[in-house]
């Protein structure tokens, strides 16, 4: 965690320093941005809100999921100099204690806010809403999913940049009647390296 914070601070400092030497890039309505992200997912929690036997909340290793991986592609379109909307397609995997693979394929609409823009450095906060296709041990489920994300990005030139993102990816399962106790929200904390292209 300490290393992550250090890396974020370094990226921010480099961005600020380089911003003074370069002609500032400024976003306009109609600009577009593409990004590719890859990284790790840390199991955060699983919450069963209808669980009658106990609190229904398990976190960390109690989720019985292990450290996993994630990758995603995003496309964003600027509807104002600070707001972009678009979509993202991802894939994540984690192993359970029984060594079986939990996979999720989220497809989400995404809205991003760029509160800090220096030309060489962007700080991006995003909210994604959509669905996720979850598969595990022969079971398959399609359900609502959401992700919140914060992402500092350093640009080498006007178009290409790298960054690091972190946040929370939540996937739900919704059941009724006798299975309602299995209604759940599972959250992963992804940490991703990102590659951006804008124009």
């Amino acid at each position, binding site marked *: 965690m300490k290393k992550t914070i250090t890396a974020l601070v370094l990226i921010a400092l480099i961005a600020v320093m380089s911003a003074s030497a370069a002609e500032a890039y400024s976003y306009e309505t109609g600009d577009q941005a593409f990004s590719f992200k890859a990284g790790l997912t840390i199991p955060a929690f*699983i919450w069963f809100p209808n669980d009658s036997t106990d609190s229904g909340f398990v976190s960390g290793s109690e989720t019985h999921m292990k450290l996993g991986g994630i990758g995603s592609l995003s496309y964003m379109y600027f509807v104002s100099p600070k707001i972009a909307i678009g979509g993202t397609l991802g894939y994540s995997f984690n192993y359970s204690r029984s060594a079986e693979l939990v996979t999720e394929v989220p497809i989400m609409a995404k809205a991003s806010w760029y509160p800090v823009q220096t030309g060489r450095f962007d700080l991006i906060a995003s909210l994604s*809403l959509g669905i996720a296709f979850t598969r595990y041990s022969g079971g398959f489920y399609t*359900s609502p999913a959401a992700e919140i994300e914060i992402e500092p990005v350093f640009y080498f030139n006007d178009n290409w940049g790298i960054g690091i993102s972190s946040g929370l990816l939540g996937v739900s399962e919704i059941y009724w009647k006798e299975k309602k106790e299995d209604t759940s929200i599972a959250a992963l904390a992804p940490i991703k390296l990102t590659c951006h292209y804008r124009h």
Partner: protein
Amino acid sequence: MKKSPIAISISIILLCCLAFTGCNLDAKVGIFRKVSTSTETKGVRITSAAGYDSASTTAYFITDSGLCKQVKGNDDITVLVANTETMHIKQASFYTNSGVQYIKYLYQNPTQDNQTTIYTSTLTLSMLTSSTAVSTTSGIYAGFEVTDGGKTFTSLQNGEMATLTNLSRMNKVITNSNASSSPNVNALLVYWTDTSSSEFLTLITDNGTTVSKYNIGYSAIDKDIASFACNSNAVILIGKENSDIYYITDITASTEAADSNKNLSDSFSNSPAIGFFDSANSVFYFKGNDAYNSVKWNTAETSFTVDDVTDGFAEGLLESTSGAVKIANDQMLVFTEDSGLFILDLTSNSNSEF
């Protein structure tokens, strides 16, 4: 041009909504429930149960490594007979004869072109030595033995013989046992074909003193049975295709199976045939693909109450199960495929590692 990305986003959202309406709700247990109750893999894959010795509290089973044993309270799995390039153990059964303990096992040589040749070895446990011969035995099932050449079907347990005459082909064999002491019935359900191509569904029961054979009348049911459980007289059968519940009220009076017109919601399409009867609570249990399933039978009204069991004794044991044997009154020993051995305690409705 400026509107197209917005249109794309709206389309994505609409697709999301459309896909959500197509949710797969067939799963018996929620996916994340299954994940959060998954148990640690033991690093060995158990393919079938071979038996349990109550005197030494030792379980015998077959893994990808060969014939193995595990003593209760000890995590170590000992390989008694290792698979080799020329020997793959397929089935095994523990038994005692004149006070001496043996395991009889079948194996094949995968390097031979004709892999249908079956060898039988008898491992004397006190000496850990095996004697091997090309076998006339084509199957060993929970103490029952099927002899090749297709003429006889014998019980190893008490020397009594139940004969399937003119046996041509064993299509399917399912075994089970009761969880409770009374009545103590081990049973075998055999779907077989005779030499004139007639098909039979035969139930063979062993209550410790008597072996009985019943040809089940299946005109009203699907003979492709996935699982079954019985007590002294009553039998519940689960159809493979739709998990239909069939029943025979008193097999000593009539062997005709009837359709209850009810079915379990779990799938039995690829599950092993784990079924047992808990006479203390008068409940039949069947392990499906996703959960344990209970069937309570009101015989007076011929009505059935079905439910799925995902907690209590089933907590954390929802993954594939390779076999189950009774080890004590109201206790079943379950051999999970990847997570080792567990004891189901039906009295306390809990489970524990073996």
